[in-house]
Every structure is written in structure tokens, then in C-alpha cells.
């Protein structure tokens, strides 16, 4: 092939073609080309290869994704940004006045300030009364926008969810450290644990056992993870309990906070009681100095309560002495003959309160009757639906403008109906369970709570993606931001319309949740870059 020494090599040919040779070298090459057919041929081939590469690279025979064209300049709709900023300001204000300040006050009142910050954060957070005040749509939206903004600002870091989870867990641990590194005694039952009468634990006591019986005294907090637990001794701090049953017979100087199937209080509790339980009983001989916050199936208050009572329950029975206001949302409420309520009673429920003749109520209860199920004959119902459509539309708009590529990616994943539904079912049920189990261990608490909050946001956003998907099928893939918004609005309206149809509505809602969640999961997976395994799993 290379017979003649003066032939130039391919590199020189390329440099010559691309004008990269110096003048002298180029001149020599040109001269050689005139007399050498072989090199001319090489040069021609290289030239052709270059042209052909250019052609192959630049030919625009490929579809430009519509979503890319739907995401032009960032201030195409400045008013949306104004709205978002307004809501963000509102959100910040709501969070401050509604959450931080009351928390601080509440924490002090509840004697939490010298206690465990972790406990305060999560328990006060979960039992926070302010959620009730946040019912205003705009406030929730504002808080949501704030969250979205935070997520957007952190998106580079959040790419690696595991990293985020570690950070959150670390943060939680950091918060927990100052107090948990303080003295605490940890006991494991084998399988049961008994603190005998006469014994005294001078620090906090943490017990994990099948059955727990505390007959002695605890000078710090008592934290119990136990299937059934009975506390007969004197607890000078708080009682925190998780399990099936908790019975408190002895005096407690602090608060009781429990997540149990049944919670029975027979003794004297100086401060507050907060309970998630199927059954809550404050017996006749019991006395609670502070407030009672109950999220229960059945709640029966036969004892004396010094503070307010706030309850979300199915059935509420009051047959004791309540010193302050009562606010109850329940199916039914009963005031027994021994009931004495000094404060105001607010009740929202399905049927009128049942007040026994002997009951002494300081003022007539303020009653709001809420019929089960939607009232189709009421105009307000439809207005409410329109408001909900508006809220979801606004939410969708913010997501669309903040993360157009992600938005479109999720909608696109909706096409993969099979994998989306499969994953959707998995995530719908598995996420809360996983979050719950993660939360049981202190290490996983941050992760669990984070995951659960994200889960709720994801559930809400499913309608936005499914709505957009429907809009896309009906209106086609027009490019530009206008059509994208139009698709969102129409799709959401159709979804909302379907959701209010009796019977079918439930199925539509469930399908939306599953399908949307699946599409979200698929889209997230793509973003997390670890494509290969999942793709292989769900392809076709």
C-alpha cells in the first residue's frame, strides 16, 4: 500500500484538509498531491468521510420531544412566578405563625424544653393542633409550594436519595444526641420485664419487652415498646409508649404520649395526654391536669380533665368533668349523666349530640352536622369540587414550570400502563409500611418520616400527571407552554368530573393513585440514572 516514501500519512492528510498544517508543510503536501494519485485518492476519501460524518450528525430526521418545546424560557409566564412567590411568602408566614411560634410556646408549656428534642419534634409534630387550622386550601398550597421550592433548590443534592436519607437521619440523630447521650437505662424483656415495687430508676428508662410491668418508680421518662404494658409506679417524667395495650394506674408527673391499640388511664396525669388509639379510656378515678388530644376509634372520658379536649374519633363518650373547651370531630357524641363541661363545646359529626338529662354543660354545644358522603344537591359541593380542581391545577402548574422535563417524563411514563400499574400498586401499599417500619427504629425515624411526607406529596401529585396524560391523549402533543397548560387543565377537569360520579369515583381515584404513582416511580428511576436493572425488569 505504501510503496513510496514520500506518500503522506493519514494524519497529515486530515490536517491538510482541515487547514491545520503550517504554510510550508501545506505547500509541500499540495505539491505532492499534484503528482500522486494514491494520495489524492486518500484525501478524497477522507474528505468524503468528513462530509458524510457531518451529514449523518446534523441531519434533522429525528423528532424533537414535544416536552422540550413545551419548556421555553423560564419567564414565559411571569404571573405564575408572581403567584408562586406570593404563595411562598404566604407559606413562610403560615409556617412561622402557625407552627414555629405555637410550637415554641407549646413546648415550654408542656415542659419539653429540658426534654428530648427528638421527642418534641416528632410527637409535637404529629399531634400538632395547627394542622387543623391549616385546612385552608391556600395555606396548604402555600406550604406545598415552599416545599417544592426547597426540593428544586436542593435537586442536585437530592439526585442521590440515599445521600439525602443519610443526611436526614444524621440530622435527626444529631438532634437526638444531646439528650439521649444523657443517662438512660435500656432494658430488654426476656420475654417480659418487671420493675419490681420498691425499685427506683433514677434516669430515663427504655424498655422493649413482650409484657412490661412497672411497679417501681421512674424518675426520668419512661419509654416502652411493648405488646402490653402496665404502669403502677410513679413516673416523674413522660411516658412514651408503643404497643397494643397501655394501662396507667400510677401517677405520672409529665405527659403521656402513646400509639397503642388501647390506652387506659386510671391514675393521675399532671400534664397532657396525646393518644393514637383504637380505644381510649380515661376512667372515673383518673385525673388529667393538661389537655387531651385523641385520634381514636372510641374515646371515653369519665375522669376529670383540667385542660382542653381535642378529639378526632368515631365515638365520643363524655361522662366526666371537663374544665376547659371541647372540640370533637366524630360520628357521634354522647354526654352521660355525670358529664360536666365548663368550657365551650364544638362538635362536628354525623348526628346530633346525645345529651343525658343529668349532664351539666356550661353552654349549648356548637354543632355542625356533616352527612356521610357528598351532598349532590348542594351547590356548595360543586363549588368545592371546582376549588379542588383549581388547587390541583395550580399545583400542577407550579410543578410544570419548575420542572418541565421531569413533568413530561412522568407523563410519558404513563404510556407504559403495565409497569406503571404494577409499580404503582407496590408503592401505594409498600411505602407507608416501609416508612412505618423505618420509623420504629430511632435510626430510621428521619428516613421514615421523610419518606412518608414525600409519599403524601406524591399521592397528591398523581392526579396532575394522570390528568396531563389524559389531556395529551385528547388534545395531542402540541408544542409550547400554552398547550401543556391546556392539557393539564382539561385532563384535571375530566378526572375531577369522573371522581365525583357515585361508585365509579372511588375506582377512578384509586386507579389514578396507582397509575400516577407508578409513572412517578418509573420517571424517578430514570432520573436516578441507575437505569439498566429496572429497565430490564419492566421492559415490555
Amino acid at each position, binding site marked *: *500500500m*505504501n510503496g513510496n516514501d514520500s*506518500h503522506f*500519512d*493519514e*494524519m497529515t492528510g*486530515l*490536517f491538510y484538509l*482541515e487547514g*491545520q498544517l503550517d504554510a510550508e508543510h501545506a505547500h509541500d503536501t499540495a505539491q505532492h498531491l499534484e503528482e500522486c494519485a*494514491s*494520495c489524492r*485518492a*486518500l484525501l*478524497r*476519501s*477522507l474528505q*468524503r*468521510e*468528513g462530509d*458524510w*460524518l*457531518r*451529514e*449523518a*450528525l*446534523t*441531519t*434533522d*430526521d*429525528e423528532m*424533537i*420531544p414535544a*416536552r*422540550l*418545546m413545551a*419548556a*421555553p*424560557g*423560564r*419567564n*414565559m409566564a*411571569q404571573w405564575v412566578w408572581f403567584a408562586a412567590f406570593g404563595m411562598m411568602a404566604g407559606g413562610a408566614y403560615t409556617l412561622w405563625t402557625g407552627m414555629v411560634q405555637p410550637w415554641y410556646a407549646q413546648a415550654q408549656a408542656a415542659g419539653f424544653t429540658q426534654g428530648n428534642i427528638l421527642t418534641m419534634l416528632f410527637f409535637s409534630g404529629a399531634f400538632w393542633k395547627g394542622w387543623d387550622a391549616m385546612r385552608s386550601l391556600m395555606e396548604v398550597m402555600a406550604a406545598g409550594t415552599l416545599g417544592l421550592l426547597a426540593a428544586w433548590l436542593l435537586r442536585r443534592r437530592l439526585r442521590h436519595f440515599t445521600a439525602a436519607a443519610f443526611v436526614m437521619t444524621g440530622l435527626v440523630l444529631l438532634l437526638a444526641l444531646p439528650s439521649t447521650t444523657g443517662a438512660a437505662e435500656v432494658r430488654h424483656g426476656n420475654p417480659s420485664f418487671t420493675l419490681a415495687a420498691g425499685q427506683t430508676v433514677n434516669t430515663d428508662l427504655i424498655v422493649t419487652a413482650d409484657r412490661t410491668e412497672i411497679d417501681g418508680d421512674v424518675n426520668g421518662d419512661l419509654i416502652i415498646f411493648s405488646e402490653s404494658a402496665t404502669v403502677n409506679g410513679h413516673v416523674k417524667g413522660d411516658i412514651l409508649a408503643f404497643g397494643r395495650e397501655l394501662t396507667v394506674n400510677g401517677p405520672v408527673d409529665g405527659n403521656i404520649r402513646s400509639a397503642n391499640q388501647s390506652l387506659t388511664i386510671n391514675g393521675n396525669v399532671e400534664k397532657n395526654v396525646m393518644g393514637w388509639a383504637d380505644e381510649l379510656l380515661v376512667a372515673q378515678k383518673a385525673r388529667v391536669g393538661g389537655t387531651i388530644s385523641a385520634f381514636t376509634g372510641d374515646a371515653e372520658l369519665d375522669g376529670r380533665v383540667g385542660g382542653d379536649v381535642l378529639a378526632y374519633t368515631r365515638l365520643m363518650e363524655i361522662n366526666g368533668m371537663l374544665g376547659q373547651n371541647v372540640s370533637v370531630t366524630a360520628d357521634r357524641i354522647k354526654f352521660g349523666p355525670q358529664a360536666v363541661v365548663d368550657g365551650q363545646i364544638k362538635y362536628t359529626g354525623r348526628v346530633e349530640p346525645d345529651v343525658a338529662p343529668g349532664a351539666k354543660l356550661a353552654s349549648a354545644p356548637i354543632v355542625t352536622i356533616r352527612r356521610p358522603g357528598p351532598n349532590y344537591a348542594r351547590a356548595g359541593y360543586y363549588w368545592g369540587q371546582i376549588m379542588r380542581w383549581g388547587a390541583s391545577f395550580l399545583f400542577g402548574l407550579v410543578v410544570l414550570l419548575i420542572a*418541565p*422535563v421531569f413533568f413530561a*417524563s412522568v407523563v410519558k411514563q404513563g404510556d407504559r400502563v403495565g409497569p406503571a400499574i404494577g409499580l404503582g400498586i407496590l408503592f401505594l401499599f409498600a411505602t407507608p409500611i416501609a416508612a412505618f417500619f423505618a420509623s420504629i427504629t430511632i435510626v430510621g425515624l428521619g428516613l421514615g418520616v421523610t419518606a412518608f411526607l414525600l409519599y403524601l406529596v406524591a399521592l397528591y401529585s398523581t392526579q396532575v400527571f394522570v390528568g396531563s396524560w389524559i389531556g395529551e391523549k385528547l388534545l395531542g402533543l402540541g408544542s409550547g407552554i400554552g398547550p401543556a397548560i391546556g392539557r393539564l387543565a382539561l385532563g384535571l377537569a375530566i378526572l375531577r368530573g369522573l371522581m365525583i360520579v357515585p361508585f365509579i369515583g372511588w375506582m377512578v381515584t384509586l386507579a389514578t393513585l396507582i397509575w400516577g404513582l407508578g409513572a412517578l416511580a418509573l420517571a424517578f428511576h*430514570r*432520573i436516578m*440514572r441507575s*437505569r439498566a436493572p429496572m429497565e430490564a425488569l419492566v421492559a415490555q
Partner: protein
Amino acid sequence: MDRQKATGAMSETELAQVLAQVRAGDADAWGELYRRYAPAMYRYCRRLLPAREDAEDATTEIFMKVRQKLGTYDSSRPFTAWLYKVASNHCWDTLRRRHIRQDLETGDVDELPLEHPDPSQLQRLEAEHTTKQVREALAKLPDRARAALVLRYFGDLSYEEIAETLGVRRQFVGVLLLRARHQLRDALGQSAVRSVAAGRKP
């Protein structure tokens, strides 16, 4: 010229006007600029990055960068050249961040066959392959080889610019380009062989 074709660019005066408006904060002008150049940018990113989603993300991110950096653009230079430079840097950063660059910085120059390739073989290769096959072969090349070809023959970047973007010496760019061409020829040759073996039309 190729670049003009590829971007469907506006005339120079029109472009200058639009750029001035964008600098003044005109949202419509920005939208106009985006619509004109986004398709070309997307295709450019598509050639450089392995996955479609990456190219989509990169396109939006590049335009965000363009918007921030528009103040630094020297209007005496062609706008598209600047745009492609920004895009090249962004995509290469993306690739590098992902640590999937297979080839090493120094490169093995001795692997280069320095004898004449057979011109007829080259012609045959080009005649037999559709644009689509070339792109598929291109996607299989190591990142740096692919980037060198795309930057040069799509983005029309100068050797200096390519050297700067890919972080190699100026003298090494030619080697990189030639080696990339060889690798592409090999990839196409192989796929042709495989197509024949599979009994399909090459």
C-alpha cells in the same frame, strides 16, 4: 454553512436584535431564541450523550446557562459558535461527572495505523450505511472519541476549542479525531458483518 442549516438560524441582524431584547429581559424574545435553537441544541446533545433523557435535561440546562452567561457573549463572534461551545462544555462535564469516560487522558498514539487505508473500503463503508447506522455506531464509541467527532463535525468547533473542552493538548486533537474515525469505521464494519450474518439487509 452546515451550522446554518443545522440550526435554522435567523439572519444576523434579526439575531442581533433578538439578543439585545433578551438582554433587556424580554421574555418573548427569549422564547423566540429558545424555539430557534433548542432543536439543534437537542440534536447536538443527543449525539454527545448516550441517553435520550440526558439529552433532554442537558438541553434545558444549557439554555439556563446561556441565559445566565449571555452577558459574557462577545457579539463580534458568531452566536452559534458560542452556543455550541457552551453546549460542548456542558455535555462533556456531564459525561465526566458520570465517570464513564473509558479512555485515558494520554492516549495510545502507537495504535494508529499510519499506512494508507484502502480508499475503496472507505467508499464502500459510506455507501452501505444509513445515517441511522452511523449514529448507532457513533453511540458505541468511547465518550471522548464520540465527543471529538461531534464537536468537530457538528459543532464546528476549532481544534483549540476542542482541546479546551476535552481538556487535552492542542496537538492531541488531530490524533483524537483520526483515531475516532478509525474506531467508527471499525464499528460500522462490524455491524455490517453482523447484519449480514443475521440475514438482514445491511
